[in-house]
């Protein structure tokens, strides 16, 4: 099933590049800056942002990967445990500015879990958030510092981000859920 395409490969590239500039601008440089991508598509996005920073600033910013599975607040509600995909943060977070990177910002629960996980690794000076798509419908008081594209959605839609590293091509699509009624009932 293919949905409505809201970002093509070019749009994804431009958004990533702009975010990389914004991050450096907000930090007034790259000192103390680290990027941490949230598994799974946040990780390649974080790498791309780091690559863009390397290209325009000439500085290599450390990139980590964070799996938030063990920090989810719904583990007792899922029928089966999600497969864990691995956390690699091979640097010290104490006193750093950590920019969390994810593909889609929705309820905010992933980010809540990610902040809990990060804090187990150290005490960052600040945690910021960069996302490719903000689709609204927050359930927690969380907002993104850097957004590739704001996309108004309904809860009955799904936003599908595809990246070359994980899916073979860069694209963002929005589609209506076919199992709308069933899902609606489950939520009622």
């Amino acid at each position, binding site marked *: 099933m293919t949905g409505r395409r809201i970002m093509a490969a070019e749009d994804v590239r431009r958004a990533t590049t702009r975010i990389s500039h914004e991050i450096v601008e907000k930090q007034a440089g790259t000192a103390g800056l680290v990027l941490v991508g949230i598994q*799974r*598509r946040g990780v390649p996005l974080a790498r791309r942002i780091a690559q863009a920073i390397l290209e325009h600033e000439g500085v290599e910013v450390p990139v980590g990967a964070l*799996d*938030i*599975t*063990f*920090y*989810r*607040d*719904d*583990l*007792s*509600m*899922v*029928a*089966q*445990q*999600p*497969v*864990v*995909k*691995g*956390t690699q943060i091979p640097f010290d977070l104490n006193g750093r500015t950590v920019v969390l990177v*994810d*593909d*889609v*910002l*929705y*309820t905010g*629960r*992933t980010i809540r*879990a990610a902040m*809990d*996980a990060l804090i*187990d*690794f*150290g005490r960052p000076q600040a945690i910021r958030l960069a996302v490719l798509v903000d*689709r609204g*419908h927050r*359930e927690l008081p969380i907002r993104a510092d850097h957004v590739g594209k704001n996309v108004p959605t309904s*809860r*009955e*839609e*799904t*936003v*599908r981000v595809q990246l070359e590293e994980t899916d073979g091509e860069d694209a963002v699509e929005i589609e209506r*859920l*076919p*199992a709308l009624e*069933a*899902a*609606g009932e*489950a*939520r009622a």
Partner: protein
Amino acid sequence: MTAEVDRPEAASSGPGGAPSSPHGPAPSSPHGPAPSPWHHRHLLDVDVLSRAEIELVMRTTDEMRDVLARPIPKVPALRGTSVTILFYEASTRTRVSFEVAAKNLSADVVNIAAASSSVSKGESLVDTVRTIEALGADMLVMRHGVSGAPYLAAEVFGGAVLNGGDGWHAHPSQALLDLYTLRSRLPGGSLEGRKVVILGDVLHSRVARSNVWTLTAMGADLWLCAPSTLLRGFEAWGSRGAAGRRFTVTSDVGAALRDADVVMALRIQRERMASGLLPSLREYAARYGLTQERLRAASPDVIVMHPGPMNEGVEIAADVAVDPRSVITDQVTNGVAVRMALLYLLAGAHGRGSEA
């Protein structure tokens, strides 16, 4: 193995909506998340595990090793889950290992030693399990001297039962930690075609029985070696390893150890002497004990294992136990990680709050 379940939505979103997932409300099947390959509500033996499921345990254990390497080796994955550890037999390492594993996952742990419980007043196993459930346990880790006892508990208990060793029958977490330890030590992480020798009291060993399954399932060339009195019944079983794989049963320790890649010594239980299966511990040590001299026949890179507790000087010489080729302490450390993985995987299967 890359079954990518990308932060699957809760099958039924509770109040507050589909947590964590950025992509949309949870559709019910058939458009739900790709199923994770773990389907077991209980873990009573390893013989129900497919190779893919064993791989999932190994992979999850890798993650738990990473958690253990952190400055604070604790994650909130099982917060609010109550784990009861009910041991009818003496044990230090397995019980403590489960307890540490559960605590590292932020579970609430209740420890019951049968000797100091109502069991000593004559309470039946079924009543004990019902009581434990009524007290709010979600998971039950159980060791019992009678083979099959955890199966009875699983029939009564509403949550997940994890067998911590039953009689001579099974010790699934030990077999999985042995496998994990071997894979992390063997070049390429593969047991395919590797000669693995289990040496010692095979007859009374649940460790051996569970290891037969996992090791043959992963393609090892498995040998069981002991005096013939301690191998009864295994000759016939030798033709029925996992997936039709055979294993070799012998009393010839020289043939067994020749070019072995792995030697796992098993404890000789002193209480067995009374039954006349062995003339004396000294004779066993002289004829079957794992000594440096015997080990020279094995591969130079042989890996020495022992599930513990050891009788040094009987089944294994003291200098072999601390030899650089011994991975006995690794087994203990990996035991915590494997048990964290098992508790984590089973916690998803109890069905609380989902329609499953």
